[in-house]
């Protein structure tokens, strides 16, 4: 019971200096796929947005590949013994890109005002927060109502980006015209955005870390066609292919090229988990037997082997096996079309066609949707694939205008951060595609999710999460698909690209190019 010790982290200047001297300067070209809808990280947190905006905005902490917190805008932090008070000391001399100083008032505004309004996922964590105060310009104190085990994990760039108070206070956040020219504290400044072509970021000369960043400029290249992206990499036009930006069947060919490196690291914090939203509210989808039938009808191993080239792992439930609280003691939905047919016959499914919304992230996802449609049609469920783009997908899912919709979401290292949001009733709210979009209601489990989140005892948490997984897997609120693995492919001259558990989302701070 005494494991929550007072901990203070201080990083001495220069301690983190590697032995090799970094070359300064140069330009890096990175593919971003698809083109982000916006770069305002406080409003939009999907993958492509975070990939680009992660260089512009920062949060108080970063996380290494073991998911341990590291300094970012906070240079040190202190957690009280009772686990209720988190005190952060901010870096000195940090400036916003427009020259205004960054202070604790910005932190309070970001967390307590801006993100509380705009960021549903953070809001559920902030529900544990009683107060956020700034005793002086460089200190911020978060006081919790009750202990919240994963709290130290919410200070990541896409979870709690720091938003400039002097720009947003008192405005209509979603329609502020500054959203088009984001102002952050990060190592790179927004320069220009040629829609459909590239996003150009330039070095922040006033960055608070001496000498960083090393690169002069960054081009995030929008290349809508996967084959063209692969070619652009082969010809040297782009230096980095982030995970998921080329078709899986191109990965082996590209990684075998000369001077090409690849890494699977940089996804630990996210642990991308894919599933299909099943709209639990209406029609056949409201029947648990129908949802189970979908699970039995899908040949997920086939998809893993064929569509994903063997990368990834079949998901057994809501929690990724890469995180701590995973349990495999659940009903296993192996490919079993006969069982699916039996369930459909038992519920007297009337053959109403079901709409399926694929994820508009390229051919891989389109093929996957086609494979699922074929699987389901073989057990007698007629599926219509809806064509859509990214904006349309966001809109339809957020407004619950779908029957089934592909998605993959991040786990953020802890079920209380990245999993419960998709299953508890309090997260049913129109307008966000990342919350309990399927409309699953189970008050008993809601209580357990809560108990597990606030329990200060990891063993107890493990036990409760195991119970939750066992129960929820029988309910099939969503159709779990795969734990996805995305290799990052890059030119070997690019050094220190992936150094954190969030990979290239915040990797350019330390990256440099061997000249």
């Amino acid at each position, binding site marked *: 019971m005494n494991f929550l010790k007072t901990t203070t982290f201080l990083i001495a200047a220069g301690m983190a200096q590697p032995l090799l001297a970094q070359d300064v300067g140069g330009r890096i070209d990175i593919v971003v796929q698809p083109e982000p809808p916006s770069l305002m990280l406080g409003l939009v947190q999907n993958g492509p947005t975070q990939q680009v905006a992660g260089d512009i905005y920062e949060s108080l902490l970063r996380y290494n590949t073991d998911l341990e917190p590291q300094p970012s805008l906070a240079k040190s932090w202190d957690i009280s013994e009772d686990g209720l008070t988190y005190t952060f000391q901010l870096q000195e001399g940090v400036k916003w890109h427009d020259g205004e100083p960054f202070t604790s008032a910005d932190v309070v505004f970001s967390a307590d005002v801006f993100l509380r309004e705009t960021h549903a996922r953070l809001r559920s964590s902030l529900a544990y927060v009683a107060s956020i105060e700034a005793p002086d310009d460089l200190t911020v104190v978060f006081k919790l109502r009750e202990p919240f085990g994963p709290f130290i994990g919410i200070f990541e760039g896409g979870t709690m980006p720091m938003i400039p108070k002097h720009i947003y206070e008192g405005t209509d956040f979603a329609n502020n015209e500054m959203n088009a020219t984001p102002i952050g504290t990060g190592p790179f400044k927004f320069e220009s955005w040629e829609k459909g072509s590239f996003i150009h970021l330039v070095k922040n000369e006033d960055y608070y870390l001496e000498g960083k960043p090393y690169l002069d400029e960054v081009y995030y290249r929008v290349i809508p*066609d996967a*084959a063209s992206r692969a070619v652009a990499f082969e010809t040297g036009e782009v230096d980095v292919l982030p995970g998921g930006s080329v*078709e899986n069947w191109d990965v082996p060919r590209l990684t075998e090229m000369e001077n090409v490196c690849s890494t699977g690291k940089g996804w630990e914090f996210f642990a991308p988990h894919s599933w299909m939203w099943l709209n639990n509210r209406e029609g056949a989808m409201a029947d648990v037997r129908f949802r189970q039938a979908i699970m039995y009808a899908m040949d997920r191993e086939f998809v893993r082997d064929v569509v994903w080239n063997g990368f990834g792992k079949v998901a057994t439930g809501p929690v990724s096996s890469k995180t701590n609280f995973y349990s495999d003691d659940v009903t296993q939905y192996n490919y079993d079309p006969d069982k699916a047919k039996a369930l459909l016959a038992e519920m007297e499914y009337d053959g109403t066609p079901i709409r399926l919304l694929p994820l508009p992230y390229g051919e891989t996802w389109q*093929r996957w949707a*086609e*494979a699922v*449609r074929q699987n389901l049609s073989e057990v007698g469920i007629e599926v219509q694939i809806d064509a859509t783009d990214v904006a349309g997908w966001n809109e339809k899912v957020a407004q619950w205008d779908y029957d089934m919709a592909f998605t993959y979401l991040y786990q953020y290292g802890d079920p209380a951060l990245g999993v419960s949001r998709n299953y508890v009733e309090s997260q049913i709210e129109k307008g966000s595609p990342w919350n309990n979009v399927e409309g699953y209601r189970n008050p008993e489990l809601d209580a357990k999710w809560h108990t597990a989140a606030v329990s200060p005892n990891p063993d107890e948490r493990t036990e409760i999460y195991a119970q939750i997984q066992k129960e929820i897997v029988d309910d099939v609120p969503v159709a779990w698909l795969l734990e996805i693995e995305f290799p990052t492919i890059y030119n070997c001259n690019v050094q220190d690209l992936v150094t954190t558990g969030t990979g290239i989302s915040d990797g350019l701070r330390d990256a440099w190019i061997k000249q």
Partner: protein
Amino acid sequence: MSFWKRFATNRGAVIGLIILLAVVTIAILAPVIYPGGPWKMVQRPFLVPFTNEALPLGTDTLGRNVAAGLVHGARVSLLVGLVSTVMALLIGVPLGALAGFYGGYVDEGAMRFTEFFQTIPNFALAIVLVAILQPTLGSITLAIAIVSWPPVARLVRAEVMSLKRREFVEAAHLAGLSNIRILVSEVLPNAVSPIIVMASLMVATAILLESSLSFLGLGDPNIMSWGYMIGAARTVIRSAWWLSFFPGLAILLTVLALNLIGEGLNDAFNPHLKKGRT
């Protein structure tokens, strides 16, 4: 010389007809040849053609039978080509006929309206229409019809304008026939042959348009078409040539056949032209 004989003197036209009949037959028999449908995953993916007897054209990225895709895709291509052409004729023929027959303000109005469509590039307009209407088989057909009718209106107008001054039309006027009756029963029947020739070429163009839209990912995602097959294969074109080659060949042959037939029809309807040309 009978119509058929004149048509048959053009070798190319006969070959075209044979190819087209073969494609039509295959399309009609598709559910019999491959009852499992084109989406069924039958074998390991990227199976090279001519290595497995049951799957002569190999398999695609998901292990689906390429031959089944071609056969079922033929239905879509022909259907879209035919229906959109009929729709385009239904818009273009009346409009052109009225404009040509009545002249004056009717002609002015109709032609400015036609020009409005003609000034926008066909394919760009089709893309916009499909993107707005959501890609379904119906909306794609409609979009193709909307971009293809202006030349029909132009052609019919010109034909009607030249026909309406002929003696038999004046005779009909003297006989006291109503304008509409003259237009429908005297003028239009004489303008049919160029319309038929044009229609056969329009079917070919429509097939190409549908394929191009599908290639760009603006096809109906629930329907296997040749354009979709090529579009889906382009990401693997360097490792699996056959995925784009066979559907491309199918499009080529069908469009070529339709063009040959169009030429044959032209020769058959206008025997004088043929003599003059050679």
